[in-house]
């Protein structure tokens, strides 16, 4: 769809670029909490343990390609947000003292997803409606330590996911 000149689409992109930056800031704040409280700060110190864990990583290859399609990329962003929204329950269990920050993050993710959904509908693109309550089973960990490392990698993967999504939105905004 020829979108670059569409003013509403540009406004959507500007708003949700800022929103994505905000969410990345929220995730970074949680990563700092994990570092400060659990002393899990560097990924390269946890590569061995990671091999024993089954950590969700949302695919975003549709947003990587130089000539990506907004529709498939947006759908993958929404699917990924849905996956990570479920995974955040793992973080909530790890950091009970920061439930507020996790809830804010979950709210922001839900809003970002529905903003994208509405924009897709405005562009007559096919969309998926996810249930508000996430039914996917939570990952189980063999030990509390593995649970902590699992939480660390969920945030790290999610931060990378957001960076890719941000670049995709910025690419669309630059067209």
């Amino acid at each position, binding site marked *: 769809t020829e979108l670059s000149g569409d003013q509403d689409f540009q406004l959507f992109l500007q*708003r949700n670029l800022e*929103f994505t930056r905000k969410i990345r800031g929220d995730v970074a704040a949680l990563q700092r909490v994990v570092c400060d409280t659990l002393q899990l700060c560097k990924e390269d110190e946890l590569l061995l343990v990671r091999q024993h864990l089954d950590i969700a990583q949302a695919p975003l290859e549709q947003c990587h390609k130089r000539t990506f399609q907004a529709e498939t990329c947006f759908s993958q962003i929404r699917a990924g947000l849905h996956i990570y929204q479920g995974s955040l329950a793992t973080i909530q269990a790890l950091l009970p003292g920061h439930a507020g920050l996790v809830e804010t993050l979950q709210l922001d993710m839900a*809003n970002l997803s529905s903003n994208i959904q509405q924009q897709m509908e405005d562009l007559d693109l096919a969309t998926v409606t996810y249930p508000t309550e996430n039914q996917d089973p939570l990952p189980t960990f063999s030990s509390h330590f593995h649970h902590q490392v699992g939480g660390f990698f969920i945030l790290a993967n999610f931060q990378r996911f957001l960076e890719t999504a941000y670049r995709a939105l910025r690419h669309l905004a630059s067209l």
Partner: protein
Amino acid sequence: GTLGCASVTVGSPIVPLGSAVTASCTVQRELCRGLEQGKVRIRWMLDNKLVAGSQRQGPGGTEVSNLTLPRFNHTQARLWCCVEWNGTKQRVGMAEIRAGYPPAKPLNLSCVLNLSDYGLTCQWEQGTDSHLPTSVVLKCTGSRAQEVTGCTPREGHSHCTVPRRLLQLYRQMEIWVSATNALGTAESEHLCIDPMDVAKLDPPTLQSIQSIPFQTDCITLAWDLAWGTEHMELQCELRYRAPEDSAWALVTGISGRAGTAQRCGFLFGTQYHFQMRCRRNSASALAHWSEWSPCRSYTTHEKAPTGK
């Protein structure tokens, strides 16, 4: 009815102020112990003032009195049905009547998003008093007329806060006030805003002011953005003046990234006061400026003597 032997009915317990009120009192003699003998004479009292009704026989040996008050001008009154008994007036039935106006249209609705908790506080002017119990609710919905949420102001207040979980950030929401009483409903104008467009920012912090480049009439300011705005694109303004200046000099269009700004044309050896403010760089005209930052003073250096 109060004694079980009389019942009072009114056309409507709530009427427009100044409109007519009709009422009827039915007295069933056999249920009124002590009234068995003699003629039943029904009287009406509006609060404590006698008013005239018309009495007739009703079905089944009852006595019925009808009353019409052509222009009911009380906002609230009690209509008493009385019967004469042993030379006294006995109150045997009562109806409370209220009068007022449909709610006034709530005016001047405006909202501010508080960045510390992302609650959206809206305020409005309630308009003239309707004299009637009126329920006021702030309503908001996503632009797809999805579920309507909002908040309810405390009694007598005309502001309330929509919590973050009921908001949709970075997208148009429709927000309005609805006032309802027994005589009708009135709605304010509907605001169509992205809550972020009415975010109220804390002011930036002026970190340092220096005469740079050295020995010139220029100064360089360094500032930091308020917490919670790092991800935003902001536009900022700087104002400064010497104590003796009557007006502030204003520097606009400073890009919002934390950093430095340079300004020249300052007098030597003069104390200046500086303040800065920012707002979101959004298309909306509703974007609120932050307050001005706390004032920061700086005295420019003396001019270097020119060699002869």
